[in-house]
């Protein structure tokens, strides 16, 4: 159960990046999964260079996480600036193809630079205890859940309480109107990418500390699952992404208890198809109709 919640938390963190970008640009940022993957490798190398790997401390790990988040934020902003912004006015198909291109590029560059798989060191002590009979708690799950909750609380504050949050909501409502009201749309989009990418980096570090192995193709599967979560909750909706993430995580954990794990990937795909076909706006999303 807690296992499913922490898996869901990871999906939710990554899904937030998809949903925020979709909210502002109506773009499925296919490269987001790769940003997440690079977050994992950035954490690994940061931990190595700073010596946190040999000699892990809680502030050290937090510093590594912060570093990875900043690195990925910069990466996300760069991707938007170089690949997406020049195409802002062209057709959605073209932007989508570019996004796929960026995703493919990062994944293959990752494969060339990092190799097929690397192991991730143990940075925080891992224990397991049983406060109630039959209820197993793993420390990694607790860490994942608490960090996720803190980040989500921060994001909520950012979106609901700050100037930037208001600007972001305005842009997602209507980019043109927001621009006319004097909102610096380019900067808002840029920061949106930065925030989403930073959250993905945090998710990557949490996953890496739990699974102890990281791979250049982890962004493809992880990203896709998180995307499903975003769609499930209604893409563009921030609470939706959180709900979708937890829902998908719980579903996968519950079902893989009964079915062979090889079928687990099919659940995400099945949920995705089902939702899109029967409730295309997702659980909490709003539907839009083309104006005639």
């Amino acid at each position, binding site marked *: 159960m807690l296992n499913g919640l922490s898996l869901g938390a990871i999906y939710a963190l990554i899904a937030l990046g998809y949903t925020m970008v979709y909210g502002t640009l109506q*773009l*499925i940022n296919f490269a987001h999964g790769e940003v997440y993957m690079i977050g994992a490798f950035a954490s690994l190398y940061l931990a190595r260079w700073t010596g946190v790997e040999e000699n892990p401390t809680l502030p050290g790990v937090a510093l590594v996480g912060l570093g990875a988040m900043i690195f990925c934020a910069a990466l996300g902003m760069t991707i938007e600036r170089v*690949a997406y912004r*020049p*195409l802002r006015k*062209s*057709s*959605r*198909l*073209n*932007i*989508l*193809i*570019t996004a*796929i*291109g*960026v*995703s*493919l*590029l990062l*994944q*293959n*560059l990752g494969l*060339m630079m990092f190799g097929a798989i690397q192991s991730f060191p143990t940075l925080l002590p891992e224990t397991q205890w049983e406060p109630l009979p039959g209820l197993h708690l793993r420390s990694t799950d607790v860490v994942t859940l608490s960090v996720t909750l803190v980040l989500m609380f921060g994001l909520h504050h950012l979106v609901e309480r700050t100037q930037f949050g208001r600007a972001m909501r305005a842009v997602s409502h209507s980019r043109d109107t927001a621009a006319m009201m004097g909102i610096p749309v380019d900067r808002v989009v840029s920061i949106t990418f930065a925030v989403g990418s930073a959250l993905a980096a945090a998710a990557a570090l949490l996953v890496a500390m739990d699974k102890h192995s990281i791979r250049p193709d982890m962004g493809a599967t992880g990203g*896709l699952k998180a*995307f499903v979560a975003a*769609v499930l909750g209604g893409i563009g909706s921030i609470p939706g992404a959180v709900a979708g993430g937890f829902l998908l995580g719980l579903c996968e954990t519950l079902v893989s208890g009964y079915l*062979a794990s*090889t*079928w687990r*990937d*099919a659940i995400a*795909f*099945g949920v*995705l*198809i089902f939702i*899109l*076909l029967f409730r*295309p706006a997702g659980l909490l999303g709003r539907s839009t109709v*083309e104006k*005639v």
Partner: protein
Amino acid sequence: MKHAAVYLVAAVLIAAIWALDAWVIPYSDFYITNIVIKIGYNLLAVMGLALVLGFTGQFSLGHAGFMAVGAYAAGALALHTGLPPMLTTAIGGLAAALAGLVVGLPSLRLTGDYLAVVTLGFNGIIIVIIQNTPFLGGAQGLIGLPLATTFATTWTWVVIGGLFIRNVLNSPTGRVLRAVRDNEIATRSLGINTTHAKVVAFVIGAFWAGVAGALIGFLNSSLFPAQFQYDRSIELVAMVVLGGTGSLSGPLIAGAALTALPELLRPIAEYRMVLYSVLLIVMMLVRPTGLLGSRELSDLVPWRRWFGRAV
């Protein structure tokens, strides 16, 4: 009489292919022949996707899934029943077409990126199903298939497929497909069921993808689910987009080039996917309509007198 000209051209081409197969291929480099065959089956998959993506404007990211259906249907049938492989190849195409119908009917009400994601999901589900079906070899693969894919069989299929797609494009149906791409609402206002039109394009595209997949199985004598993951779908999208959405010859040229280049330039084979991705991004930034845009080769060189449009 002039109406028969295109059949004449096709017949001459097929005769030439078999002549080459009999007198030239046995003496040519095995490695080169192999590349030419690969180009052939990639072209079959590409022309189907050109119809769906380029001419109908429907972004499918699951084309490799239909290749898988065709490949496994044809392969398993040939292996378990002993039917001739080229017959099962056609049946594989029909199985893929049926899969196209099943996937297309519900999904094609969606547009744009949602359609892309749903087709991607179906691609994934098809792979998971194959991996979990012992009859199809599961994740270990289906092995021991008859070796039936030759230069002649592959390229005969290419000629038939090319003629098929060309005739669809230059027909009332082809016009409807382009109308759907340009403006779906206006097309509906003409009393045309656009979902139906899109499904037709999807089914045709899936058929030729299925044939292409089947040829892969009979070339390697084996099939593995991993061969049909979604990076293959993206590879095909790259070929269509680079060649030009709204063109048939453009994607075919791009398909041949992107198949041959990594094979011929061994050092870059490792960077194949990097090359694709960079090409995709640069093309979108610099020339988003692709190599030929919506033109055909015949618009650029004065071939039209002999071949008609869309050769």
